[in-house]
């Protein structure tokens, strides 16, 4: 019976004069997931709708992942005509009774279009009476009904019951571009997802040290980014081989500093690519205190290597919270596959947890940092485009 899907927008509504810009970005996201030029997206007094006859469930599931949308509902769209509304509501209740046991109901009418001649309260009474008269074996229960029939009157009228949660946040692309440092662990895909939900159009960068790491760990990164892209839209993944950097660190720097110096290189390389490809920020999955390179001290020393803003959406999250989100977005199962990521083979046995910036800078003097960054990008970058 459904022939339409309605979508409520979250924070976009608050955006005042910029609203058009945000709605535009949302439109782009919707067009991408709908992937059918025949289906038209339109606005009707603050809400977004689309006409669709087939595969409504599948489409609702897809739309529920779009950032910027708070609620998605499959609905029945009709003309805003009282007789039509009466008949359709009766038909709708019968239709809902077919699929589950409904003994009680409640009508919840709302006029977004105040020119409609009947007030909401009166409509509730009229339509409720109509249902009682024409549907068998059903009663009104305003407190705890089996079925709520929402009647949403706009330039057209929309009848619906289910309200599915949307992706929330702001539409992708409405808040600049970010480059996510994707490691293959549990945290960084979640970080990318969360920044995507705040409207950042994200791509990823991933560091490896093949042949000291395996081809499989890059495949794992590709799989993770494919899943992330369900939410963020298509992404690029820059693969960068930093083996030569590890080689030189090993040769010329103190072993205990390996991780910190390597992280500083990853930042510098990411910043360089960000400058070239016009990303506004870097995004990392760091969570305070989780490992040695994620103490405040370490973060400061790592951050010091670049000027670009580094967003760390997980900084205050517990591991369990991060895992919950990773499970929700379905990256968890892939993240826990046990391939060595680029950290594990070169990690020192006793890494510094309170690195001293001066010491690190002194150690780095033994390396030609700029040249190494340039050459690494020049020689090793490979780009993967998500499915």
């Amino acid at each position: 019976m459904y022939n339409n899907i309605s979508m409520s927008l979250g924070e976009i509504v608050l955006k005042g004069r910029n609203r058009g810009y945000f709605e535009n970005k949302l439109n782009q996201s919707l067009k991408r997931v709908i992937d059918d030029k025949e289906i038209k997206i339109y606005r009707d007094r603050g809400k977004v709708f689309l006409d669709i006859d087939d595969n409504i469930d599948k489409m609702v599931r897809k739309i529920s992942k779009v950032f910027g949308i708070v609620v998605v509902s499959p609905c029945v769209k009709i003309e805003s005509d009282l007789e039509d509304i009466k008949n359709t509501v009766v038909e709708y209740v019968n239709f809902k009774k077919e699929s589950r046991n409904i003994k009680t109901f409640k009508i919840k009418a709302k006029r977004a279009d105040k020119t409609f001649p009947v007030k909401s309260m009166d409509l509730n009474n009229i339509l409720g009476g109509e249902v009682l008269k024409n549907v068998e074996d059903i009663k009104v229960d305003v407190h705890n009904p089996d079925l709520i029939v929402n009647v949403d009157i706009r330039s057209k009228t929309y009848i619906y019951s289910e309200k599915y949660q949307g992706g929330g946040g702001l539409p992708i692309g409405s808040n600049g571009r970010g480059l996510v440092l994707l490691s293959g662990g549990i945290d960084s895909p979640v970080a990318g997802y969360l920044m995507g939900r705040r409207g950042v159009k994200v791509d990823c960068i991933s560091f490896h040290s093949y042949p000291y790491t395996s081809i499989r760990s890059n495949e794992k990164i590709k799989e993770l980014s494919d899943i992330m892209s369900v939410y963020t839209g298509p992404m690029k993944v820059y693969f960068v081989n930093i083996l030569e950097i590890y080689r030189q660190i090993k040769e010329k720097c103190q072993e205990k500093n390996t991780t910190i110096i390597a992280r500083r290189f990853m930042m510098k390389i990411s910043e360089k690519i960000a400058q070239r490809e016009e990303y506004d920020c870097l995004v990392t999955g760091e969570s305070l205190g989780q490992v040695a390179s994620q103490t405040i001290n370490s973060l400061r020393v790592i951050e010091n290597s670049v000027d670009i803003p580094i967003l760390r959406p997980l900084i205050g999250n517990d591991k369990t919270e991060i895992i919950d989100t990773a499970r929700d977005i379905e990256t968890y199962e892939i993240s826990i596959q046990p391939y060595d990521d680029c950290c594990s083979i070169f990690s020192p046995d006793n890494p510094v947890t309170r690195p001293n910036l001066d010491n690190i800078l002194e150690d780095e003097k033994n390396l030609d940092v700029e040249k190494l960054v340039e050459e690494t990008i020049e020689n090793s970058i490979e780009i993967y485009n998500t499915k």
Partner: protein
Amino acid sequence: MAVYLDNAATTKIDSEALNKLIETHKNNYGNPSSLHKMGVNSEKIYKLNLEYISNMINAKPSNIIITSGGTEGNNTGLWQIIRFKNKKKKILTTKIEHPSVTKYWEFLKEEKGIKVQHYGYYNNGEYRVDDLYEKIDDSTGLVTIPFVNSEIGFLQNIEEMTQKIKGISKEVLIHVDGVQGFGKLKIDVSKLKIDTMSFSSHKIHGPKGIGGLYIKEPDKFVPLLYGGGQQKNLRSGTEDIPSIASFGKTCEIASKTMDENYEKVKRINKMYRELLPNYIEEVIFNGNLEKTSPYILNLSIKDIKSEVLIHFLEMDDIYISSGSACSSNYKGISETYQALNIPQNFLDGTVRISFGRYSNEKDVKYVVEKIAKYTNEIRKMVRR
């Protein structure tokens, strides 16, 4: 051209066997159980090729069932302990079995109350089994023998073992995991007192997903799979005629080339053992050539990580393995390696080089040089 030295994991299919597979899929797709002519034709192909397959180990076709491969064969072999209905509950097994044996006795222990006792120990390049015989008692229902161990290649003298076991008790069932030996080393079941023996096609350049089980006494056999009653009720499931035809072809070729291949891989194996120490310091060979199958060469290189060596070599299209491809998916060290007591700083650098019909003497020096080159490189990088 790839230098493929991971033949104990799987092999490249022989082109004649591949043609047979495709041709049969195209022309003889009938179900051998069907009454019509196409069914009859498929049945003929089945019978003919079952003969080729059973000839490989000098068995009668009626003593062979076709399985999905080595794992099913080993599971089914161990399952035979059920014949004793709780009267005999002990399995004697080694610590160098394939996971399809180990995981199955773990299942039997958990679900059927089967008891398990280990025999065998590592000594000076071989896996000795002389402690087996004193462990056989009234409760012993089944003994498993890994004919050729898949990681190190340890070889067992089945003839002597089965003689002695049956000498102590005629009732004890003997299951042989024949997967790494079938088609490579001579096996004549008519002279061996074994009850079941598993084997597989893809380890000898045949198609994947098919293997077999030798069964000495089909009338006492307890099937693992039940259904349409195919293969004389011993193993239900529609016969995969194209794979059987292809496996038959594979066996035909393997029996013709067995001696020649054996001599060749033995030469190659020896060459590696002689050359490698000239190029790399601190390498140890796990297992004596005389007490292992020449098809498998296992060695440990000090202060490297075998996985890294494998990735370096793959860049040159050289393919070897770290331990057994099946157990290297698990973290931690396989029982076989624990039994060996390899020194800690060698253990991480353990690799398996395994040969097949397409292995070549002329590749040896090239591979050794590459291994040496990358070993030096890795030793520079991996901190100790």
